[in-house]
């Protein structure tokens, strides 16, 4: 299997993972108007709870029940939801930029905890020996194709879920009070309750999909969940078109292909740092250019929901 093809498979897999993250972010930020800069923390919670509960070797950590994979996924999801509730209740008392920064702060706290609670998380060493689903079925490099398929299957499922949510009265209410909270409240809508529910649901989802990320990277360390995950997800969403339907997936594909393509450039050993840096430079340039020339992104909210209003009166 040629190196370029394998590389492409990897890029598409990672793009799929970010597409899922971006779709979840689209729900809470694009439709419900909650500018969450802390999603990396929720993914971290999901990832760590997953690996801790499913970890087979348990000499140096205090918690290691060794559950099967499906149980670990559920545990990670529930953990994500609980942490989202804990973060959400206080954070939703502040609005706009303050919410942004509060969520960012919580995510950083989570990351620091993952570094410092070594007896549970193995600190910066992390976990790197674990099995992945179906890995007995396929040999080494073939597994990448399986994971690619798995990830994009989840992309499809999440996309269908989001479509359903977006077109429902719930989704409609979200896009309503996102833009005009007082009017929504004047109609008797308990908007903060809807916000919390959405935020917790997002937490459940981030936690549930974290294992995909873990299986792709093949280790679990605190450096996996830096604010870079948050910012790349946001960039993907913003490029693709926030509050649209197709935007998150389009944005993730374009962003990941463009930034990772830079790594295809072969170079000498001393160039390694430069190459790693090029990714950031490209990421930055793409974001700046898109904001400059097409700040609403590639897909628009209008188009995404246009057909919806048309078929309402039957």
């Amino acid at each position, binding site marked *: 299997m040629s190196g370029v093809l394998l590389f492409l498979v990897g890029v598409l897999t990672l793009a799929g993972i970010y597409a899922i993250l971006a779709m979840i972010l689209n729900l809470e930020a694009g439709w419900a108007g909650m500018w969450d800069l802390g999603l990396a923390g929720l993914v971290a919670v999901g990832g760590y709870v997953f690996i801790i509960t499913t970890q087979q070797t348990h000499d140096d950590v205090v918690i290691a029940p060794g559950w099967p994979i499906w149980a670990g996924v559920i545990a990670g999801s529930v953990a994500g939801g609980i942490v989202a509730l804990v973060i959400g209740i206080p954070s939703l008392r502040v609005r706009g930029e303050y919410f942004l920064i509060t969520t960012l702060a919580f995510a950083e706290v989570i990351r620091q905890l993952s570094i410092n609670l070594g007896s549970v998380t193995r600190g910066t060493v992390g976990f790197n020996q674990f099995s992945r689903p179906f890995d007995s079925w396929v040999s080494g490099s073939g597994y990448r194709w399986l994971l690619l398929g798995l990830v994009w299957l989840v992309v499809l499922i999440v996309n269908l879920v989001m479509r359903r949510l977006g077109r429902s*009265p*719930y989704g*409609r209410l979200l896009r*309503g009070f996102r833009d005009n909270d007082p*009017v929504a409240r004047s*109609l008797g809508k*308990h908007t903060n309750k809807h916000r919390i529910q959405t935020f917790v649901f997002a937490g459940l989802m981030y936690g549930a999909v974290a294992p995909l990320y873990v299986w792709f990277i093949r280790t679990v360390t605190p450096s996996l969940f830096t604010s870079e995950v948050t910012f790349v997800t946001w960039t993907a969403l913003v490029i693709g078109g926030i509050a649209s339907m197709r935007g998150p997936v389009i944005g993730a594909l374009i962003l990941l292909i463009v930034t990772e393509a830079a790594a295809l450039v072969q170079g000498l050993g001393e160039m390694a740092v430069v190459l790693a840096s090029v990714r950031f430079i490209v990421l930055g340039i793409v974001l700046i250019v898109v904001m400059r020339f097409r700040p609403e992104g590639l897909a628009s909210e209008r188009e995404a929901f246009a057909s919806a209003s048309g078929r309402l009166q039957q």
Partner: protein
Amino acid sequence: MSGPILAVHGVTKLFGGVAAVRGVDMTVQPRSISAVIGPNGAGKTSLFNVVTGFEEPTEGTVRFQGDQVTGLEPWQVAQRGLIRTFQTPTGFPALSVWENLMVGGSRGPDESLWAAFRGGWQAADISTHERARRLLDDLGLWDLRDTLLADLSPGDVKLVDFARQLMAQPVMLLLDEPASGVDPGSIERLGNLIRQVREQGVTVLVIDHNIGFVLGIADQVHVMSLGQVIASGTPDEVVRDPEVIEIYLGRSA
């Protein structure tokens, strides 16, 4: 039901050192159309805000249908049937006219996250669709039903706001400047609709600058100035009140 549907007692609202509303007493009888008029800064909108829970009064109480509603959250007040409109028309800009009305008419359970998964909301409310259709017809907005609110003229947005709040099936409706920015033809439609709404049992309280409009539809008029109610009575009585005349002479209302 006997007794006033809305009773405001000694309501004062201070912002810093300034009293937007001072010691206001007001009652509204059920199934009436009342109005609050007064120059800019008289405290009319602040009064509305206190009554509907968007502000907490510094002093005083508000009773709706006999129950204490002072200090409740806006959504709690609204769920009891006390619905208001806002002075600046904005509504839900990303939603169409039809969707705006549907949000107004939707009940809580249908809008929950669970309902979104479970489904079943589509078949639920034929009567809601009917009400929405009739309202849009009455206001001449049926052709605009799929237009996003962001694309409408401010006057049309005003009308949609009114229709949407009506969809929430209010027991009492508080209208904040419903006629401002609306073209004369639509003002007449608006007046008819308000009378129609009253026929259906809804009590209406209106704030507006358009004295002609107000005097044409109101049974009771309260005049406010500098945070206090200075006159109450029928339109004829109020128009002849010397204090009221003094306020409106030499001041652009």
